[in-house]
């Protein structure tokens, strides 16, 4: 079994009208055994920037700690928050530093730029960035997620509709993947507020 499938994960981000949504599953497993059903995969970097990390959980946690460290120093030095594009370049550089002994995670980055324009991107475990205008997925359930998002997504959705769409896409996809599931965690971010919701799906 691949190292990326050791813990199981599903992360997805979608762009809406002046907003974005990022969602993940909540299962943490060790191969076939479920260890936790409330595992957090999406982390906040600042008010308008979030990163979801799928893959090996220990690497996800360590990588997150390093990124927060870098961002805090950046904030102190430059007296401003990092733009999402800048943060994505930083993550890519940090991942490539470990090219021959990588972090086994695939980040999904979602944020609102200076003009509140939504930005999403994903990258592989060694930092190859992939920008998208509609949605990005990662994790063990990624193939199902691609299919679900492709059929359910439409551009310029309002926050409420975006929430419904991303939740349905996530739950449908993790149901087809034995290693991810046990509910969902969805954040919808607009320029004025952040709505965090927990989903109850098939608890298996």
């Amino acid at each position, binding site marked *: 079994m691949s190292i990326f499938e050791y813990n199981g994960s599903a992360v997805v981000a979608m762009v809406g009208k002046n907003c974005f949504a990022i969602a993940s599953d909540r299962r943490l497993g060790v191969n076939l055994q479920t260890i936790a059903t409330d595992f957090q995969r999406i982390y906040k970097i600042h008010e308008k920037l979030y990163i979801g990390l799928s893959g090996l959980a220990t690497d996800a946690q360590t990588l997150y700690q390093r990124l927060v460290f870098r961002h805090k120093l950046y904030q102190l*030095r430059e007296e401003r928050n990092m*733009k999402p594009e*800048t943060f994505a*370049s930083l993550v890519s550089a940090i991942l490539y530093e470990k090219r021959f002994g990588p972090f086994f995670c695939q980040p999904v980055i979602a944020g609102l730029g200076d003009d509140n324009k939504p930005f999403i991107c994903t990258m592989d475990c060694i930092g190859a960035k992939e920008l998208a205008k509609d949605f990005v997925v990662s994790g063990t359930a990624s193939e199902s997620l691609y299919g679900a998002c492709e059929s359910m997504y439409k551009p310029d959705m309002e926050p409420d509709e975006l929430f419904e769409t991303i939740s349905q896409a996530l739950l449908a996809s993790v149901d087809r993947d034995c290693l991810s599931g046990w509910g969902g965690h969805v954040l919808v971010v607009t320029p004025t507020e952040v709505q965090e919701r927990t989903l109850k799906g098939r608890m298996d």
Partner: protein
Amino acid sequence: MGDSQYSFSLTTFSPSGKLVQIEHALMAVGSGQTSLGIKAANGVVIATEKKLPSILVDETSVQKIQLMTTNIGVVYSGMGPDSRVLIRKSRKQAQQYYRLYKEAIPVTQLVRETAAVMQEFTQSGGVRPFGVSLLVAGYDDNGPQLYQVDPSGSYFSWKASAMGKNVSNAKTFLEKRYTDDMELDDAVHTAILTLKEGFEGQISGKNIEIGIIGADRKFRVLTPAEIDDYLAEVE
């Protein structure tokens, strides 16, 4: 590196609390050719005298005003070779920033890192402080900016400043002439007039250098022909 006698830092404190080597470095700056900078509402101009030691020197090969990045330029007063080392290091730092963040380095950050290098050389063994003060002119998301960096590593943001010989006259002149809503062209004229104040001999496009950056965020050094045009306007 050397004998134990010489491996302590040359910048050890004097009983009065001063670092004598830095004071001497500032003297080296103070006897260098005059340079100045003016921040306008829509850009920055920096200028310097370009007095060459002999008429046989090919003045087209000498360029005192240099780019640190496409939107940040720099001029110095003091020892030319020292400035080249600093500019080289700063250019590298700017590119390292870009490689990491894929974003152009903000002027403040570059100035801070350059100043950190200069400070390093006041607290290490076997080295001496840099014998230059730099005037850094740039335009970024925070608008036009002008910074002076001293051999000690301290940096200041200025609306208008001068360094080198004749600095007190130049600063008095600038204090009188500076207005907050100056446009870039006015600033260039004021810069030329300020240089003219202490200039020995006939001023022309061949013995001064002017660099400007406007809202287009592209720093460029004016050609001698362009400088002659501005000189004609000033007459």
